[in-house]
């Protein structure tokens, strides 16, 4: 199968996956007890007002009609009206998207640029002191609840040292007039930076530890291969072996882990946003659940899933591109 055909096939599978996501979440949300309309207008509302609102949100129709209608709308990019905010769900998501993207992007960047070199170093100095230290750090990193890291950071860096702000995010592109303590673009960037540090560490530590662990074991695996022994036998320097032979070949499993970690990071953003009171998509979904705002819950879940599906699609294509041995997905 050629690369374009493989991409087309994977795209088709992704559409299928998303259809599944819509179906599962739709069924879940509709299985929920409690009438969203009643919760929204309150128990004292009269019957005609409730009926009017039910009709307005299409809740008076049978479930399969609602499902088909929802699907048709989703295909056209319409995720419905939020019951709670009374605006289109897409508008609400786009409003909250930058904060979440900034958070996820910065924690992923942090995780990758720290974890890859540390993992390589750890493999290179296997069983030396630095390797042990890195491994203990990696173990603790994958075993610590991220939100606890967030709480500890707030206790130490905000309450005790007074260094960093504990709530909210500042977008680096925000106008200076809209940001506290800022008059110039530089101030905005500074504020954005100091607001981003703790959430990044909170969300990024787990990713970093996970990538570090896979990088180390993947490097060790490659360094055990015969062609590396051969290169050593030919007197190729350890440095060159590491750089030219081992490193590149060790990156494929790492890439997979990075791709799969995207979903952990997106899920983790719910927690990080809660801890730092960031108005992102994560806190939006919590609001949606608590308010029984089912179009909002459906929309955000679907949106999260799409981000993940796109992420995995990109890693898969990269993978196929980087590793010529892969016969594109005949045995997926």
């Amino acid at each position, binding site marked *: 199968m050629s690369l374009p055909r493989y991409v087309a096939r994977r795209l088709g*599978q992704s559409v*299928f*996956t*998303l259809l*599944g*996501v819509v179906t*599962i*979440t739709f069924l*879940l*949300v509709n*299985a*929920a*007890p409690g009438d969203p309309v009643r919760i929204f207008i309150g128990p004292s509302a009269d019957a005609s007002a409730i009926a009017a609102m039910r009709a307005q949100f299409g809740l008076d129709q049978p479930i399969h009609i609602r499902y088909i209608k929802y699907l048709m709308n989703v295909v056209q990019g319409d995720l419905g009206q939020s019951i709670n905010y009374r605006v289109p769900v897409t508008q609400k998501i786009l409003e909250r998207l930058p904060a979440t993207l900034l958070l996820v992007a910065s924690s992923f960047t942090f995780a990758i640029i720290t974890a890859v070199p540390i993992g390589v170093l750890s493999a290179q100095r*296997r*069983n030396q002191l630095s390797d042990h230290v890195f491994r203990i750090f990696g*173990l*603790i990193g*994958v*075993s*610590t*609840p*991220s*939100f*606890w890291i967030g*709480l*500890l950071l*707030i*206790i130490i860096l905000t*309450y005790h040292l007074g260094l960093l702000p504990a709530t909210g995010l500042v977008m680096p592109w925000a106008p200076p007039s809209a940001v506290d303590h800022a008059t110039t673009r530089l101030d905005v960037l500074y504020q954005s930076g100091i607001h981003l540090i703790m959430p990044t560490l909170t969300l990024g530590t787990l990713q970093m530890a996970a990538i570090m662990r896979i990088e180390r*074991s993947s490097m*060790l*695996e490659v360094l*055990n291969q015969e062609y590396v022994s051969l290169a050593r036998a030919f007197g190729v320097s350890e440095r060159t072996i590491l750089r030219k032979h081992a490193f590149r070949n060790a990156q494929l499993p790492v890439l997979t882990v990075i791709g799969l970690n995207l*979903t*952990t990071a*997106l*899920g*983790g953003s*719910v*927690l990080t946003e*809660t801890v730092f009171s960031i108005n992102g998509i994560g806190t939006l*979904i*919590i609001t949606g*659940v608590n308010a*029984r705002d089912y179009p909002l*819950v459906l929309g*955000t*879940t679907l949106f*999260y*899933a799409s981000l*993940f*599906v796109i992420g*995995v699609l990109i890693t898969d294509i990269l993978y196929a591109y980087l590793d010529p041995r892969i016969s594109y997905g005949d*045995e*997926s």
Partner: protein
Amino acid sequence: MSDATADESTTHTPRSGWEEVTTQLRRNSTSRWGMYIVLFIIVVAIWAFVDGVVLDYYFAERFWYSPITAPPGSRGLLPPVGITNEYGTGTWAHPLGTDHRGRDILVRLVYGSRIAIQIGIVATGVGATLGTIIGAVSGYYGGWIDDVLQRTVETFYAIPFIVLMIAIMSAFGRGLWIAIVGVSVITTPIFARLIRSEVLSVREEEYIEAAKAAGVRDRNIIRRHVIPNSLAPVLVQATLQIGVNILIVAALSFLGFGAQPPTPSWGAMLAQSRTYMLPDPWFSVWPGLAILVTVVGFNLVGDGLRDAFDPRLND
């Protein structure tokens, strides 16, 4: 170390694969520590279960649960041993201090372990079993069954665990048993995918072909040959997954979706501690440490098992 192993296997009767693995586990000092931690937490959790369910909190109330009378409208937080706040200096009566309602934190940690272990082990067990069956069937038969199952698995994979759990719990209610069902549901695809890839390679082995030629029924081939031969990675993954699931449950409780108060759970304790982070930071420290130590324990055992099954990377 490898020499010693070789000597033993030649001089003694050959050991079975399982004996080999347990010996390896005991030899590896880090995974031994992991086993101690896991055993300790499990004993504590069983103790909490017996006291809570069988003895109706006899010990908890008699010996540990002695709420201090906090002045109305104030925080009830007594500090741990060695720390002083406006209520006084911590005493050994409450070694880790008390929470905002004057409840002993150590007692609540002990009872929280029950929730963590219960969900961690039960949900992982259910998920691993279901996933193994689904994955084995899917991998063995291939074809459209495989396609349907794979797409379903991918669908569950695509939704972040936390988000899926929130959706499940918002639909069916909040509480311990729904959390267990939910975590089982999200754990299943992980094992389905894992065992499927194992089965794909086992399927091609000659002994499977031999079994087929001998007329053994598919169901028996899967049960007797395919699953047992793919089990090692499942065991490793299951141990690691218990840790992950404990983290997920803690996160859900933190967000208010787990076991509901007054049932003590580590995540909910962390959520409650947020209000008191400034004056009484230690309240936020203990539950997090409990989670960390427990998950480290399971991860150490999991890593140890992996090394034992795959000796190539042994240190």
